[in-house]
């Protein structure tokens, strides 16, 4: 018995040289498929993007016709009105994150009060999240049809006269996209909030009730502060995801009408695979990397300052 204890202590504190060597070999063997694959399929393309962004390579002239042109892709990019429009659209898209979070939290608080049927609600609100984006986009393409679509027919029948043009109008197309994003994301946010709500000690609410606090006051002073860790993480996730809304916009509007729903990821696709401007598309990729580095940095400092566990 004593011998075993000694042995575990020994191997726990000071691994023997010979044994460590053996560990090394099999450890590398285990991570090899993942690491080799990631390096070839993810890291190499990241590095390649940076290199390509400095060239005028396009798929038509091929590699021989490619020239090193320094930063001029970036100069062009920041004078490209479609790209700038896309960046602005993406910034507007970011507002879905707080709106969606607020709605989900309110919903979660209500659902949390029900003892029965909690799981049924989870499944219902989760449906849009697991459904394919292509299917969802196609459904809404018809629902949002400006003249024949069920949504506008309904609005007309209840007395609205100037119904929105939804995805066919330059002013309403982006809000249409935002409505769909909120609809698909609520399930995920709701489930995470429900989990967080269950961890709030019930005594806090009881104490507040004794002091005569209103429901709204309790929501603002107890619920909201105590779910901040979840809010913060969902916020960051939402920000990152809003730069990845490719499928929905591609199928719903393809960036239109008149680029009113174009965003950088879609523009990258259009430049890279429709215009075949490889170098130029890569410079958009580099800008996306930089934006995500900034968000990651914000997450890193925000986690320390803002989340009160």
């Amino acid at each position: 018995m004593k011998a075993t204890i000694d042995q575990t202590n020994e191997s726990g504190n000071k691994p023997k040289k010979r044994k460590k060597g053996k560990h090394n070999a099999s450890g590398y063997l285990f991570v090899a498929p993942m690491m080799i694959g990631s390096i070839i399929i993810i890291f190499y393309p990241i590095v390649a993007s940076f290199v390509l962004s400095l060239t005028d390579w396009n798929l038509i002239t091929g590699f021989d016709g490619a020239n090193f042109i320094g930063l001029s892709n970036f100069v062009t990019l920041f004078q490209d009105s479609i790209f700038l429009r896309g960046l602005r659209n993406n910034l507007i898209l970011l507002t879905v994150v707080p709106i969606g979070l607020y709605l989900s939290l309110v919903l979660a608080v209500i659902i949390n009060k029900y003892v029965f049927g909690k799981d049924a609600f989870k499944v219902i609100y989760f449906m849009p999240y697991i459904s394919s984006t292509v299917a969802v986009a196609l459904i809404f393409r018809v629902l949002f049809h400006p003249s024949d679509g069920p949504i506008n027919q309904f609005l007309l029948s209840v007395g609205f006269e100037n119904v929105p043009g939804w995805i066919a109008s330059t002013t309403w197309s982006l809000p249409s996209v935002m409505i769909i994003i909120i609809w698909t994301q609520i399930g995920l946010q709701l489930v995470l909030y429900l989990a967080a709500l269950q961890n709030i000690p019930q005594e806090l609410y009881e104490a507040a009730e004794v002091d005569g606090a209103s429901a709204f006051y309790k929501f603002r002073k107890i619920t909201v502060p105590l779910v901040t860790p979840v809010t913060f993480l969902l916020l960051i996730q939402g920000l990152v995801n809003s730069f990845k809304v490719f499928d929905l916009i591609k199928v719903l509007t393809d960036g239109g009408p008149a680029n009113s729903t174009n965003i950088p990821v879609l523009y990258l696709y259009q430049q890279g695979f429709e215009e075949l401007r490889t170098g130029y598309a890569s410079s958009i990729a580099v800008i996306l990397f930089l934006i995500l580095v900034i968000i990651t940095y914000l997450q890193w400092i925000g986690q320390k300052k803002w989340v009160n566990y």
Partner: protein
Amino acid sequence: MAVLGILFLLPFVWMLSSSFKPEGDVLTYPIEWIPQTWNAVENYREVWFGRSSFALYYWNSIKVTLLTTFVSTAFSCLAAYAFAKMTFKGRDLLFMLVLLTYMIPPQAIVVPQYLLFSSVGLVDSHLGLILLNSFSAFGTFMLRQFFLSINDSIIESAKIDGAGEFRIFFKIALPLVVPALATYSILRFIWTWNDYQNPLIFLRSEELYTIQIGIYQFADSHGAIYSLMMAAAVSSIIPLLIVFIIGQKQVIDGISLGGVKG
């Protein structure tokens, strides 16, 4: 609350009812939630065995999705175990590298990926699609969390008994994380089934198309026939619904973990 729930699902109800209608009735108002004239058999027959055969797209999707799920789970699982329970030089650095890939938007690297794949002949092949989704930072991270929770003393005592690393992994560690494997596999299944971007960019031949590209055929190539579009959409969602209902708890737990842990 129940009313709100139903309202929330109305787009799906509308999709289902439209998929049963003749084309002329899809946009009639007030909406016929229960079709007056049924055209379900004709619609679904056209979708599944008509000009664009959903049967073929289904088969392609099932093949790609199952293989991707298997390969991705296997790779993630091996790496996750090593990152959690083995010691080797540079381990933490390698793990950081894997985590870095989690933030990268897939659109941002697709141009060089395409160039790479076309230089080795992987464009327009299912193998290419499978490889694109096989290296998951999320899977590695998630499974590592579960391996970490295994008590070291179990592994140590197996070592003392003379078991090799592979034996310990397969006989002791792996059986303990089966629920986590199920969770990750289900999520990977859903994500791969729904993947639209990679098939859009990497597939050229119609006989290789997966479901997501297939549905689009009914929206674009055949002049947007709404009833068929909806029948295609219903067909594409059904497998997800089945997987989700069976693995509901796993899906929600898994996504929560990924969400909470970032």
